[in-house]
């Protein structure tokens, strides 16, 4: 297995290098056969990386401890699912997994560009292959997944217990998919800059890739938050940890990019800005990996620290310097006939939306690296934790939500007083009424009142937009409202999918406010048969039960959860002990409703006194965070879904290209 894996990775590196060389030679000599060979080499590279990943998976499944990686991150008693996920549980495996995704995406792009984007395709593939060369270089020379373990131990060290959770089975792949797929728009942007083809062609070609990346970044962040919520046992889901921040920043920048490209497509503006954003998004994905791997910034999520930091930092700096140089060298070509008639216009709203999104990304970046700066400048270690990020980002988030309501309804070019009154009266009224209701309900914090009001305002703007569309269809094509609604979304999926995403963001925003401001915690030690109250619930402790397997010990406490005198559920929070590593872990018990989550942690068991201690959180609205994530994902799928109009546009573009090629060919024949 070692030989197969190492050989496959070495061949993959050679193939990636060959592809770069062949593309360069093919471009210089105008040899189509050489360019085709470069493309084929990338497919072969993907096959080799897949073979290497398969070899490591095989080693993990067979508990082949002659491989150092398997011995370090698996064991014979590890459940099969986690043997599979152990591929990204350690340093070398996660880099191999990253490279596998990159190789697959590169192969797909090589396939997609066989007949499309012929002018820039070789450059796109050169950039993607160059990124692959970096990762394959790491895997071949710096952090080798197939190093042998001599002598092979009889048993492995096991996977970190915190990673033995189903959310961890899907969180890293989602996040990695989001990170790695950002390479595709970045490669197209580089190619556009190199070739000087700086119209919005590269944006249209990579729109789905950008959405795909955003989709998986969204899911990755959500899954990570859910993992933290269920596994870390502190009743929260986001702690502004550096690794969390590293995943959040590319999401913010990609969100800004997806909005600002609309302005370029519509108004041919913001070309430099869009190119800068996609470069920044890609650089931030590398920065995230740098943080996770380097140990420069301490993080509870850095499961795999190593000496890779300098390599990643060098690559990151090279990418930033190279891309910035390329961008600056093309500034003259990127000048557009920008025009903006009014601050009260959709393009202005998008500009401010971009400012806030990038501003939040910068604040997160600044807070993440400030401890390093402080230590370098003052020699004093400091911590930048949740209070900083909440205080700095809180007002910016309110501004962002406000703009999310304004952007979709305000007119392009210039909004008139009439446009503003027609569009915003009902949503503003919804916002004010919600604020007054919240006030009447005894909510006094200005942030909560503003947040709930703005959330209602944004939902109001979306309802107005849907209502307008449905009414228009009813008037024009005489459809009944339910059918009109379906057709409205189906035929304008990009626009209405975006609104669905906005609904998801509002849900998540409301959940964040509710769970941040109104969480209550109760800590009680009780004996069997005793009860205590948490909010509307009465919890009766029924007793302990234990389970001993070869892999772990499990001590569960049974709690009868009652509300209004009736049992609503029996919950069993547990303490686990992973035998191989002698590491304790928590399994929380959660009763989720749309109103609140009852979150129970078994904090301690005193065998002598018979007292069992529970840490219980009652967290309002937290379910809406997950619901918001699902809604955002659904909206993104709707947005990405191809529709007839788009297919027709693509077909028309293809027909135009064929006609142009025919004309070119005819003129060449005449010339000959």
């Amino acid at each position, binding site marked *: 297995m070692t030989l197969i894996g190492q050989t496959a990775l070495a061949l993959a590196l050679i193939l990636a290098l060959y592809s770069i060389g062949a593309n360069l030679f093919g471009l210089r000599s105008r040899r189509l056969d050489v360019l085709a060979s470069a493309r084929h080499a990338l497919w072969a590279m993907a096959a080799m990386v897949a073979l290497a990943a398969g070899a490591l998976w095989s080693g993990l499944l067979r508990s082949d401890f002659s491989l150092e990686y398997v011995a370090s991150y698996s064991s014979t008693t590890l459940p099969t699912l986690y043997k599979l996920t152990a591929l990204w549980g350690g340093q070398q495996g996660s880099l191999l997994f990253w490279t596998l995704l990159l190789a697959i995406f590169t192969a797909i792009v090589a396939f997609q560009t066989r007949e499309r984007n012929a002018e820039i395709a070789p450059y796109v593939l050169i950039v993607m292959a160059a990124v692959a060369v970096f990762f394959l270089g790491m895997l071949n020379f710096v952090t080798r997944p197939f190093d042998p373990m001599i002598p092979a131990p009889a048993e492995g060290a096991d996977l970190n217990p915190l990673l033995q959770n189903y959310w961890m089975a899907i969180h890293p792949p989602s996040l990695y998919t989001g990170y790695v797929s950002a390479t595709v728009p970045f490669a197209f942007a580089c190619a556009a800059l190199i070739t000087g083809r700086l119209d919005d062609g590269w944006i249209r070609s990579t729109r789905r890739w950008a959405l795909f990346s955003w989709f998986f970044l969204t899911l990755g962040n959500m899954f990570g938050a859910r993992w933290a919520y269920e596994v870390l046992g502190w009743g929260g889901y986001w702690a502004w940890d550096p690794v969390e921040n590293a995943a959040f920043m590319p999401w913010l920048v990609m969100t800004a990019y997806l909005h600002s490209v609309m302005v370029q497509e519509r108004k041919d503006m913001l070309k430099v800005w869009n190119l800068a954003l996609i470069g920044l998004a890609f650089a931030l994905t590398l920065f995230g990996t740098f943080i996770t791997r380097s140990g420069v910034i301490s993080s*509870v999520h850095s499961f795999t620290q190593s000496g890779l930091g300098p390599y990643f930092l060098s690559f990151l700096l090279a990418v930033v310097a190279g891309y910035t140089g390329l961008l600056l060298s093309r500034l003259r070509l990127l000048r557009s006939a920008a025009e903006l008639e009014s601050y009260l216009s959709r393009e202005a709203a998008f500009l401010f939306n971009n400012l806030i999104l990038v501003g939040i990304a910068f604040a997160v970046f600044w807070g993440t690296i400030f401890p390093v700066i402080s230590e370098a400048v003052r020699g004093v270690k400091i911590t930048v*934790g949740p209070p900083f990020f909440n205080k700095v980002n809180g007002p910016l988030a309110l501004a962002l939500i406000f703009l999310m309501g304004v952007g979709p309804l305000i007119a392009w070019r210039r909004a008139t007083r009439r446009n503003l009154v027609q569009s915003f009266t009902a949503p503003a009224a919804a916002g004010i009424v919600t604020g007054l209701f919240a006030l009447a309900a005894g909510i006094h914090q200005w942030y909560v009142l503003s947040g709930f009001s703005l959330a209602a305002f944004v939902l109001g703007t979306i309802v107005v937009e849907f209502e307008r569309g449905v009414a228009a269809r009813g008037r024009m094509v005489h459809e009944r409202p339910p059918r009109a609604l379906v*057709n409205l979304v189906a035929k304008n999926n990009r626009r209405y999918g975006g609104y669905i995403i906005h609904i998801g963001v509002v849900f998540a925003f409301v959940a964040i406010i509710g769970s941040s401001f109104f969480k209550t915690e109760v800590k009680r030690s009780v004996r069997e048969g005793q009860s205590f109250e948490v909010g509307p619930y009465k919890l009766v402790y029924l007793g302990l039960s234990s389970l001993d397997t070869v892999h772990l010990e499990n001590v569960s406490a049974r709690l009868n959860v009652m509300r209004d005198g009736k049992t609503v559920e029996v919950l069993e929070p547990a303490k686990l002990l992973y035998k191989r590593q002698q590491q304790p872990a928590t399994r929380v018990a959660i009763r989720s409703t749309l109103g609140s989550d009852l979150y129970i942690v078994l904090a301690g068991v005193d065998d002598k006194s018979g007292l069992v201690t529970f840490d219980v959180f009652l967290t309002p609205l937290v379910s809406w965070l997950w619901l918001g994530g699902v809604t955002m994902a659904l909206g993104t799928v709707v947005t990405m879904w191809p529709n007839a109009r788009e297919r027709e546009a693509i077909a028309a573009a293809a027909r135009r290209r064929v006609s142009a090629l025919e004309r070119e060919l005819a003129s060449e024949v005449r010339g000959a």
Partner: protein
Amino acid sequence: MRWSMVLSLVLVAAMSVPRSARAGAPARATIQEVGEGLTCQCGCGLTVANCNHPSCGFAIPTRGEIAAMIEKGMSRAQILHAFRHKYGEKVLSAPTTEGFNLLAWVIPYVAVGSGMVLILIAVVRWRRPQREAGGTRPAVALAGEQVDAALKHRLEEDLRRQL
């Protein structure tokens, strides 16, 4: 509509004043509030208020110390100052707002403010050519009832085909 907006704003402003300020007496800090201001030193990366390690050697005794300090009548700021004196700045969960640390708080807003100024300058520049060319083009949103019937009919026909 306008009076209700003004009224709600006034109410929001009035209610956003902390209760303690209205009551005239300073509220006692809670263990939770003070714990949020301190970073647990056990390596969990959470605040003292949130660390849930059952036998944490830092968060659990620290919460006890905080409770005792609150009993003595110390304010949140005084307690945080005492812990800073004992463990150094790293124990605080956010940078202080003095000296070099002030940069941590100020720079994000300076960056956003600078971005805002850049946008305003850019918009002024983007609007200038239009003004120099003799005003703005008629905006679509202005059209409203000014469009003639034939054009309106054509627009509706086009729209129907798109639908």
